[in-house]
C-alpha cells in the first residue's frame, strides 16, 4: 500500500497526542501529576495541539476536504466515521479537564470525572483508528487482531515519552512516568515483534487463480497489462517495498522506537542533574518519533492488497 505521508503524520502525531492526553488525565485524576495550572496548560495544550495537527493533516489526504464534516454521519457501519466522531467527542472532556485544571472553573470531582472520560474517549478513538485498517480483509497484513492493540500501545508509549520530557522540563520527579512509559514501550515491542512474526509466517491464501476463477485451467500468469502506465489502483495499492529494505527498516524502527528510549528512560531513573534529565528525555523523544514514523511507513509499505493479483499474478 502506498504510504501516504498525510496519514502517517496523522496517526503518529494524533497517536502521541492521545497517548499524552491519557497519561495527563490519569495522572491528574489520581493525583500523581502536579496540579499547577501552568503544567496543565502546557501539557493539555501540547496534547490537543498534536491531536489537532494530526487531524488537520489527515484532511490533506482527502480529495474534497471541504466536505469532511460529512464523515461524521455513517458511524453505524464505518470505522472511519466512528473515528471522526470519537476524535471530536474527545475534545469535550479534554476541554472540561482544562477548565478544571487550568482555570479552576469546576470542582475537583468534576475535573476527575472529565479526566477519566477523556481517557475513555481517547482510547476509543485510537481503537477506531486501528480498526479502520484491521477491518479490511483485502489487506492480509492489516486484517490482524494485533493491529488495533499496536496502535493503542504505541500511542501510549510515544505519549509517555512526551510526558517524561514535560516533567523533566518542569523539573519534577519523572520516575513513575518513566517506569510506566518503559512498560508501554516494552509492551509495544513485544506486540510488534509478535505481529511481524505472524504476518511473515502466515500462508498467502489468495491466488491469481482464485482472483480470475481460472484455476481449473492451470496457473494464471499476466500476459498483457490493461494499460501502459500505472493507474490509481497500481499507484495506491501496488506499492511494494523491497524485502531486504523492509528488514533493515524494521531493525531501525525497533532500535529507535523501543531500544534507545527504553535505555534512556532507565538512565533517567538514576539520580541526574536537571539539565541532563532534559537532554536525555529530549533524545528519547527524538528517537521514538523517528522510530514510530519508520514503523508507520512500514505498516503501509509492507502491506499487500489482494488486487495486485490481477496485475502481477502469484499469491497475496
Amino acid at each position, binding site marked *: 500500500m502506498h504510504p501516504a505521508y498525510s496519514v502517517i503524520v496523522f496517526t503518529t502525531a494524533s497517536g502521541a497526542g492521545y497517548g499524552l492526553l491519557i497519561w495527563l488525565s490519569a495522572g491528574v485524576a489520581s493525583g500523581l501529576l502536579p496540579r499547577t495550572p501552568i503544567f496543565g496548560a502546557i501539557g493539555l495544550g501540547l496534547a490537543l495541539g498534536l491531536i489537532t495537527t494530526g487531524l488537520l493533516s489527515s484532511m490533506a489526504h482527502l*480529495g474534497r476536504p471541504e466536505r469532511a464534516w460529512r464523515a461524521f454521519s455513517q458511524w453505524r457501519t464505518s470505522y472511519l466515521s466512528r473515528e471522526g466522531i470519537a476524535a471530536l467527542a474527545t475534545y469535550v472532556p479534554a476541554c472540561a479537564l482544562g477548565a478544571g485544571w487550568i482555570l479552576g472553573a469546576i470542582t475537583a470531582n468534576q475535573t476527575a470525572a472529565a479526566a477519566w472520560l477523556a481517557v475513555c474517549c481517547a482510547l476509543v478513538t485510537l481503537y477506531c483508528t486501528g480498526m479502520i485498517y484491521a477491518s479490511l480483509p483485502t489487506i492480509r497484513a492489516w486484517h490482524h487482531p494485533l493491529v488495533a492493540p499496536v496502535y493503542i500501545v504505541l500511542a501510549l508509549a510515544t505519549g509517555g515519552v512526551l510526558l517524561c520530557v514535560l516533567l523533566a522540563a518542569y523539573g519534577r520527579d519523572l520516575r513513575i512516568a518513566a517506569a510506566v512509559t518503559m512498560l508501554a514501550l516494552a509492551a509495544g515491542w513485544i506486540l510488534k515483534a509478535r505481529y511481524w512474526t505472524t504476518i511473515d509466517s502466515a500462508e498467502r491464501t489468495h491466488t491469481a487463480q482464485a482472483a480470475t476463477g481460472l484455476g481449473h485451467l492451470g496457473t494464471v500468469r499476466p500476459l498483457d497489462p490493461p494499460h501502459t502506465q500505472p493507474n490509481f489502483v497500481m499507484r495506491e495499492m501496488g506499492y511494494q517495498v523491497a524485502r531486504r529494505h523492509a528488514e533493515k527498516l524494521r531493525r531501525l524502527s525497533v532500535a529507535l522506537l523501543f531500544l534507545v528510549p527504553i535505555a534512556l528512560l532507565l538512565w533517567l531513573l538514576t539520580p541526574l542533574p536537571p539539565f541532563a534529565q532534559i537532554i536525555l528525555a529530549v533524545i528519547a523523544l527524538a528517537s521514538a518519533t523517528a522510530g514510530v514514523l519508520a514503523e508507520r511507513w512500514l505498516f503501509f509499505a509492507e502491506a499487500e492488497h489482494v488486487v495486485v493479483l490481477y496485475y502481477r499474478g502469484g499469491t497475496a
Partner: protein
Amino acid sequence: MTSLPAATGKKLGLVIDLDTCVGCHACATSCKEWNSTGYSAPLTDQDAHGRDPHGAWLNRVHSYEVGDGGQSRTVHFPRSCLHCETPACVTVCPTGASYKRADDGIVLVNPDTCIGCKLCSWACPYGAREYDYDDGVMKKCTLCVDRIYNETMAPEDRVPACVRACPTGARHFGDLGDPASAVSRLVAEREGFDLLPELGFKPVNKYLPPRARKDHAAPSAARELPISAAPGSNVDRFFAWVDKTLSR
C-alpha cells in the same frame, strides 16, 4: 445510507464470457467515452500527452496466459465493479456517498457527497474503484444507470455501453436475481462463477469459463515447434540488427 439494504428488488449485473472475449478493449473504451459525459462526468485523465499519462477508467481488460504446455491458452479478462450483494466498499464509506440501491442492487457513488478518502478502494478486492485526481472523488462502474432506464434512447441501446460495444457478444446484462432471466440461465448452463468468493462479498456479476479445448491431444503430447533459425544464428542476428536499426 451506507447500511446495506436487507434485500434488493432486482440484482442487475453483467455476465462476462471469457470464452468469447477477444481482448479488443472496446468495452473499456466505450465505457470511458460514455462515462466521460454521463453520470460519472468528468472522468478525467492526467498528463494525457506527457510522460506519465493515466486516468480514471471504470473497466480494464487484462490478458492472461493460463495453463501449461499444449493446453496453455490466452484468456482476456475484463475487470470492473461486480456490484456485490454485501460490498465492503459501501459499508466502510464514512459519508454515505457510497450506496447500494435497494431497487436494482446497483452500487453507486454520489459525486456530491464523496470526500475522496479512498477507503472504499482499499476495501474492494477487485480494484473496481478508481480515484479521479482532478474531480477529487471516487469513480466506479454505474452499470450505465443513465442508459438502462433512459427512455429517450432506443430500446436496444438501453444496456450498459460495454455490452452495446462488445463485438463478440461476450458481455450480457440482466437481472441475476431472477432465475428465469436469460443471464441467469446462461450462468446455470455454462457454470458461471464468482471472483474471490472466499472473501464473502457475494459478487452479482458472473464470469463464464473458457470452454474445454477439443483441438488438442492430451497435454503430455508436448510437441516442439520446429525452429527455422536457432537463436543466435546469423539469420537471427540479421533480423535483430534490422529491428534495432529500424527502431532508431
